[in-house]
């Protein structure tokens, strides 16, 4: 029997949650025994070629590309996990949710005190994914099966959850492993 496959991605995140995953230290070798990493930033695979057992999502949805990637993950992963505060509540990128998008772009590309932009143009190339009106938590875009909060979630939280999922046990996190910071 082949090993179950897992996939990970970072949407509107900072890769800190992936760092926390690497922070499981030598247990990464045990994890590699349990699973095959099908598509994740380390191998930079661009698309799914097989169904995965577990998908880990870091970051929320701030643009149309995030939404597309998230939907692809949903259809290609049996179990989808929101990892970290950005995936769960938008996180730092969601601080723009209290400001209209137009004002955000104006500040970032025209009015900001350190901006040098003689033409005053706001980038609008077809190659650049369109921003959404606000940053959305992943579970407001697709169905999410499990949530691992934290900024980032402790390495032990990721380890406990992954081992539980891969050994068909319920995820039961002790007090010390549910953190929002």
């Amino acid at each position, binding site marked *: 029997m082949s090993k179950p496959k897992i996939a990970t991605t970072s949407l509107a995140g900072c890769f800190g949650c992936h760092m926390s995953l690497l922070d499981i230290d030598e247990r990464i070798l045990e994890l590699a025994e349990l699973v095959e990493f099908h598509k994740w930033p380390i191998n930079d695979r661009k698309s799914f070629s097989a169904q995965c057992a577990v998908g880990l999502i870091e970051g929320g949805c701030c643009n149309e590309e995030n939404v597309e990637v998230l939907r692809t993950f949903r259809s290609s992963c049996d179990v989808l996990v929101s990892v970290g505060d950005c995936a769960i509540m938008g996180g730092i990128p969601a601080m723009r949710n*209290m400001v209209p998008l137009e004002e955000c772009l104006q500040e970032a590309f025209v009015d900001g005190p350190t901006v040098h932009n003689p033409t005053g143009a706001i980038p609008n190339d077809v190659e650049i994914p369109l921003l959404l009106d606000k940053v959305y938590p992943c579970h407001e875009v697709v169905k999410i099966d499990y949530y691992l*909060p934290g900024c980032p979630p402790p390495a032990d939280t990721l380890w406990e959850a992954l081992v539980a999922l891969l050994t068909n046990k319920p995820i039961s996190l002790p*007090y010390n492993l549910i953190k929002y910071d």
Partner: protein
Amino acid sequence: MEKVVTFLLDGEVIQGQEGQSIMQAADEAGKYIPRLCAHKDLTPHGSCRICTVLVNGRPQSACTQPIADGILVESETPKVNQLRTDIIDMLFVEGNHFCMFCEKSGSCELQALAYRFGITAPKYPYQFPQRDVDASHPDIFLDRNRCVLCGRCVRASKEVDGKNVFQFVGRGVEKRIAVNSEQGLKGTDAEVMDKAISVCPVGAILKKRVGYAVPVGRRLYDHQPIGTASEEETTE
């Protein structure tokens, strides 16, 4: 001598004094009932409903409901804890609670309640409301993004400080904390050592220049859930 009142809390016989609330009697018996707006030094407000218990099957706030002989009180049951979890979920989505950089994180009672109930994500959609920050005072921040409208500052300012610095204005989703000066906090007689400043359960009212002083791992709720017996000794 005051009359002794006997009642059942989660099947356990509890004795209290006539006139006590369910919460007071439970506290004296060493039984913690989760709470947010209630504070031992302030008049109960009964507004957050986290301390909801079933009294003879009817939901009541334990901080305001007086004890009576023979009542059956349910607190630590799945049904009641689900009600509390739902309220905490709503408080998280109705404000802008960015725990990852909040100075209060680790010592925040709202966050600690969510930890206690094992909440990993709220079940309601986030509202991301527009709220004001008042940083005008030299020593105190007022960040309404984090305010849960518990009214502790309102009561503490009036009852303990004798100042009436804070008050509620507006109704429904428009309800917010206001201060009694058009210039903001700096125009009030609020002072950094006021009771109203220290009783805020979340990071809505903070003292300036003392943030992040306690390292992660040594904060109030890093290792022990809110409501554990040893908490009283470590609270300032």
